[in-house]
């Protein structure tokens, strides 16, 4: 089993090593000053990002960036609810030599492989231009930046699940007492990633037993209201931004925090080759990784990077056992395993 850098058992030491370094001021003729000047000429940036950021969040990000770099860029934000559709659009545009619609996109680590494998991504000297960017955030040989991490784990309704019954392991979800009371998200990549820890046979057995629990299945955002309303007691695999959103609204929902390992999905920002506003796009990507940018990503999207010190994600991961997806695994096995587990659980 290839785990490489993907499997992280004790995360704390890694985080400490990558503590935040403040961004330096742009000196004349430096790569950063050239980037800022280039962005000034470009005037705008077309960004496709998660719908949870909202147009207001995207505007807040742009305002803060403009303030920091003395610019007056305009943000054209497109909210996404389907990353696969975006991937298809980017590939179709590249094949017909159409300039990309979006200068910069935010996708998950599960999706970016489709673009990287087709050599559609633009690389950039991130470390040379932005010393503040943690090295762990620079992915795929300078072709992408990891902006935030999303944590996947079971969640429960605090009114329906007594404290002593809160799942402490993934296997606890399989307890017969939860039969017919469990929701499961359609995102099978979480189970696929657990094969890195459990192996394929154990994961397949787990999925068969989960299917026997007769979980009600649906998209991540679609099952969350059914947990909040008390229609169901548990979600087998839910994402942290949705749980954090529920907690902020004081809905009776909580993470099952003792479950190990917590599966990590990465949100990455990247730019496709031949975009119309490459300088503004690079600035936006880098800005997202400084504390002001991270603050906005948390306020609107409930997501931050565990590699930027003092962010909610940084605090969350302290002492936690995390499981990252190895890029090699993501490219070779994740899609096939996700399909298999989807079929086992009854999803076509």
């Amino acid at each position, binding site marked *: 089993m290839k785990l490489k850098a993907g499997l992280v058992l004790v995360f704390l030491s890694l985080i400490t090593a990558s503590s935040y370094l403040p961004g330096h001021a742009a000196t004349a003729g430096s790569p950063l000053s050239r980037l800022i000047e280039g962005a000034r000429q470009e005037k705008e940036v077309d960004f496709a990002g998660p719908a*949870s950021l*909202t147009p207001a969040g995207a505007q807040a990000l742009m305002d803060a960036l403009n303030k920091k770099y003395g610019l007056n860029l305009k943000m054209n934000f497109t909210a*996404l609810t389907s990353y*696969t559709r975006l991937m298809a659009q980017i590939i179709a545009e590249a*094949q017909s030599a*159409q300039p990309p619609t979006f200068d910069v996109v935010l996708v998950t680590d599960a999706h970016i492989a489709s673009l990287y494998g087709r050599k559609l991504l633009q690389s950039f000297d991130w470390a040379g231009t932005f010393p503040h960017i943690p090295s762990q955030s620079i992915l795929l040989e300078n072709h992408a930046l990891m902006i935030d991490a999303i944590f996947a784990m079971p969640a429960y309704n605090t009114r329906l699940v007594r404290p002593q019954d809160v799942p402490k392991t993934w296997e606890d979800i399989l307890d017969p007492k939860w039969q017919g009371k469990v929701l499961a998200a359609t995102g099978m990549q979480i189970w*696929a990633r657990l094969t890195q820890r459990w192996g394929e046979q154990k994961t397949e057995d787990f999925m068969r037993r989960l299917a026997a629990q007769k979980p009600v*299945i649906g998209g991540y*955002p679609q099952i969350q209201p059914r947990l909040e309303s008390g229609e169901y007691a548990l979600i087998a695999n839910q994402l942290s931004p949705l749980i954090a959103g529920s907690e902020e609204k004081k809905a009776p929902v909580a993470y099952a925090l003792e479950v190990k390992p917590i599966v990590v999905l990465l949100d990455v920002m990247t730019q496709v080759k031949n975009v119309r506003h490459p300088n503004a796009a690079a600035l936006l990507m880098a800005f997202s990784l400084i504390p002001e940018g991270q603050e906005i990503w948390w306020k609107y999207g409930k997501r931050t990077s565990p590699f930027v010190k003092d962010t909610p994600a940084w605090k969350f991961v302290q002492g936690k056992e995390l499981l990252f997806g190895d890029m090699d695994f993501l490219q070779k096995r994740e*899609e096939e395993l996700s399909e298999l587990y989807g079929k086992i659980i009854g999803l076509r």
Partner: protein
Amino acid sequence: MRALALKFREFETPRPSQFGIAALAAVTCLLIILPVLTIIIASFRIGLPGEASPSTLENYREAFLDPFTWQVLKNTLFFALGTIVVIFFFAVPAAWIIERTDIPCRRLWLTLMGLGILIPTFLKAIAWILLLSPRIGILNKLFMDMLGLETAPVSIYNIAGMSFIQGLILTPPAFFMIAAAYKSMDPSLEEAAYVSGVGRLKTFFFINLRLTIPAILAAILYLFITSIEVFEIPGLIGAPARIFVFSTVIYYATHPEVGLPKYGLAGAYGMILLILAFASSYLYFRVIRQSHKYVVVTGKGYRPKLIELGGLKIVAVLFLLFYFTLDIFLPFLTLVWASLVPYIQVPSAEAFSKLTLANFLKVPDYSGWKPIVNTIILLLTAPTFSIFLSLIISWVVIRSQIKGRYLLDGIAFLPHAVPSILFAVALSYMALVYRQFFPVYGTLTIIILANAIKYISFGTRTLNGALIQIHRELEEAGQVTGATNLRILRKIVIPLVATALFNGWLWIALLTFREVTMALTLISPRNVVLSTLVWNLWGAGYVPEAAAMGVILVFVLASFVVVARKVGEKVTASL
């Protein structure tokens, strides 16, 4: 007599203006056929449109050699048939009551019929979950308390439940498709029945129902295919309970959590819809070939007159109230409730203490002017373009003698049979390939075009039913005076089918407003519309915020419907 026969033969001979109309119809066909062909070709390839791939039957193998597909086919047919039963239980009597009788507050009922569509379907689904979920359903709990039951008596998580909700949602389009036929019906036939001592109910079944068979059949066939194609109710209520229909299978093929969309596989599933569409078109042709049987508007004594309901008035009002309670009042109350709570919850004393307007205050954060302006342009242009093309096609099909005209009608039905996602992908691909000639990629124009083409099937079904009821003698009279076909169309045909034209336009406007699948597929920063904003809020898990935006849009669009209806009535009356 010989002179009349001569005139009739002259009418049958195509004239230059008829060729012009036929040419326009041919261009429309091209607009439809090209994307459909793209989808068919994609179904024989692997990968994304435009990617190098040898021709293969792999998608068909994957789709049709899997026993799961046949279970899906069975589910789909049961769901669609169940939906049709519910639709016609409500739509046919409602059309007769509202259009043919002296029911009070007729304008209010008509407006309400147009309002149901304004409530987003996913919020209606959530409303019905809150009402009829076996665990938390308010109505179920009420029944359990009243009847002393230990388990919930009703569940919506089955095909019957899905059909019930979908049928309620699709009743208004059926109503609008058949209402025009009832409205333009010559009352002399009913009066003859009454004079002969036949009761109202018997007259309804043996006169009204029979004379409107083309309109009803058109609506049945159109909505049967609609029921097969709709995604939201099967996706939100069926799929979680593992009841899959073709629309959900196509959705999962085009929206995998990992990897790329499988448009080829979705295209292979889509071929089943195409076959069903062709089969239903064939049935439809058989009926409209007999169209002379259904003529009710002739040159003599055409004077629609309303039937007096008398003591049955209260029954009719209760029937309409029952329908609107199920389709509008209960879901709208739930929508308002959802917009006022911080998160989705069942009404309780505690929940009432948490009511807040915060979700409404956040709405400006999610919008801006651009989507509003884009939506207004879309609402005004797409239905106008669509209904214009529909009129041309319907006229050629029903009125001309051009060979192959019934094939034209089948082609007009195609966009409806093709899943929206695939249709939009094909259009997008064509816009990319031919961008030097038609620079519409990423613009609002491509969304306008997509909606206009997609809803030609609705426009032609509505107008065919209305045109069939008009006797040729009215146009022949125009021919005798030497008028051109275009003039006859403008001065005779359009005024006589004005109600159907207006209903068709209004309904296409509303369908365009709520259409989200194509808008999302064709999205760029320049062409965002309101429907995608609401969808994105919901897709991001912001259900109360989506509900707040939904409530605001319902009020804004209700005003639009009221104004449009008033203007429409004035315009149609002046024709």
